């Protein structure tokens, strides 16, 4: 019966119910979008790193796996050194240069070497760069910049002609010739990182150990290990940021529900008086208010999940190259729990007020 009473109370005031649920949905959407962005960006990073086709990556001295690289401190001669190691089939250096920090960068690649390692680009339109100031871009970047083959894009204060549009998923979204980028960024003879392809998978551990022993100060990873490090758990700052957002979501949920239920209790003062005249205890009234708040929070969480699909669509439509949101169903119950926690806390004071109401005064309320 109490469920029916809660349900009818919520149904009887659809505008209040909808607005309350919508306000609860907003922080739920924020949390889900943030988590989706984190997971999506990391997943995209994994996909692109995997798309290089390398078995081993050599990073600059003093860098960690999580460092965002935008300089070229590794001497290019090291690429030749690596290339000459036993069981190494291919080695290629790349330069990464930020073009709209921190989300988009250009990758300087040796096209033949990179194609050999990665299996080659799949061109959606156009072809490889052949002339100076030509670039390759992936489909997402082309969509975000509304660029077609032959279009001129201004990057790094220079005009570049788009020679080809490729399928995404290999290292980066924007590619230029390695030497050209080295010249432009004052990094002649230097690279950002070196990718290594080994002749057979079973030889990867041996080559890895050999490189580590010879290049002691360089962080060197097996690609499979390197890719597995791309997770939220590996970024303490990101985890903290998500926790702060969760805290804000709980506070907003608390405030919204507190206000909404406070108004509801005021509106229903007489009804509370009626229930008390029928013998409803303080616990019954408090439970009634809490359950109503929890129902609102569940509806809000469901709307929030729906809205997170909307934010994903918006980000993919308007900034497909900069941000890569994902839908993370594992977080739906957590988001619902966040909303319910805020709602339960927010309903306590109005619920206590309702439960403590004098029945005679409540019955006389107009």
């Amino acid at each position: 019966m109490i469920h029916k009473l809660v349900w009818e109370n919520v149904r009887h005031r659809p505008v209040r119910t909808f607005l309350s649920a919508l306000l609860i949905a907003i922080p739920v959407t924020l949390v889900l979008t943030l988590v989706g962005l984190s997971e999506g960006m990391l997943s995209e990073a994994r996909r692109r790193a995997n798309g290089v086709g390398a078995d081993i990556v050599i990073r600059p001295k003093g860098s960690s796996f999580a460092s965002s690289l935008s300089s070229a401190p590794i001497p290019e001669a090291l690429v030749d050194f690596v290339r000459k190691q036993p069981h190494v089939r291919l080695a290629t250096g790349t330069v990464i240069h930020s073009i709209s920090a921190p989300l988009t960068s250009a990758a300087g690649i040796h096209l033949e070497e990179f194609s050999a390692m990665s299996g080659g680009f799949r061109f959606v339109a156009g072809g490889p760069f052949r002339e100076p100031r030509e670039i390759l871009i992936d489909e997402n970047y082309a969509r975000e910049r509304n660029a077609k083959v032959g279009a001129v894009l201004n990057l790094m204060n220079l005009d570049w002609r788009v020679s080809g549009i490729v399928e995404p998923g290999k290292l980066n979204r924007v590619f230029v010739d390695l030497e050209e980028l080295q010249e432009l960024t004052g990094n002649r003879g230097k690279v950002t990182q070196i990718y290594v392809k080994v002749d057979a998978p079973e030889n990867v551990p041996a080559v890895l150990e050999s490189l580590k022993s010879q290049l002691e100060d360089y962080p060197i990873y097996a690609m499979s290990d390197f890719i597995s490090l791309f997770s939220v758990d590996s970024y303490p700052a990101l985890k903290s940021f998500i926790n702060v957002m969760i805290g804000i979501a709980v506070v907003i949920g608390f405030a919204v529900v507190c206000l909404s239920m406070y108004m509801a209790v005021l509106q229903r003062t007489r009804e509370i008086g009626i229930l008390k005249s029928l013998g409803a205890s303080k616990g019954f009234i408090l439970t009634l208010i809490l359950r109503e708040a929890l129902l609102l929070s569940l509806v809000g969480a469901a709307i929030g999940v729906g809205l997170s699909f909307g934010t994903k669509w918006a980000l993919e439509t308007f900034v497909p190259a900069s941000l890569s949101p994902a839908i993370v169903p594992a977080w739906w119950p957590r988001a619902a729990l966040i909303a319910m926690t805020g709602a339960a806390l927010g309903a306590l004071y109005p619920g206590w007020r309702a439960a403590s109401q004098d029945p005679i005064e409540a019955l006389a309320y107009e």
Partner: protein
Amino acid sequence: MSSSHVIRIENLRKVYRVGKVQVEALRGVDLLVERGEFVSIVGPSGSGKSTLFHIVGGLTPPTSGTVIVEDRDLARMSDAERTRLRKTRVAFVFQKFNLLPTLSAADNIAIARHLSGNRNGADPQFRAVLEMLGIANRLHHRPSELSGGEQQRVAIARAIVNHPAILLADEPTGNLDTANSQLVLSVLRDLNQRLGQTILMITHNPEAAAFGHRTVHMRDGRIVG
């Protein structure tokens, strides 16, 4: 107290504090009501009728005096004990019907049953009571879809669904036209006569008061006749 007395009130006083002012609503009320009696209480506004009802119904505690309802002294009861009393032993019918607007008539009755701790719905005889009240075919309507007379009869059904020892009716015809007033009063008299329901009814209307076995007059917080 004779066992036939369902209510025994002795020297009942109730003082309200309104800001810094003390208002003496009841000034030593004595009243005996027998089981199965239909008592009308009349008096001008401010005479203390409603306060007497609220105390007998366990909505507020007395300031002093004795109020025995079914051998239990309300003056010694805690708030929680008075709440339990309202679940099953006393029931109210109000002038403004006081039905829950979000629930159907049937659910308004069912919620009283639920609050009493009975999860099995009304007993079979209750169907006959609903027929007697003339609302058996109106139970799935919400209060806003019912006439005033129908709403008051639903309120009566809700009040008696748990077989209370005492039914307290506070101006039950105050918001009704003449025809519906007569209908509701007839229903109350039928409940009293057929089921032996003890009823205390506040009214301003002498014709309504005449439906009771006897009339108690109140003035200035006292019973004057």
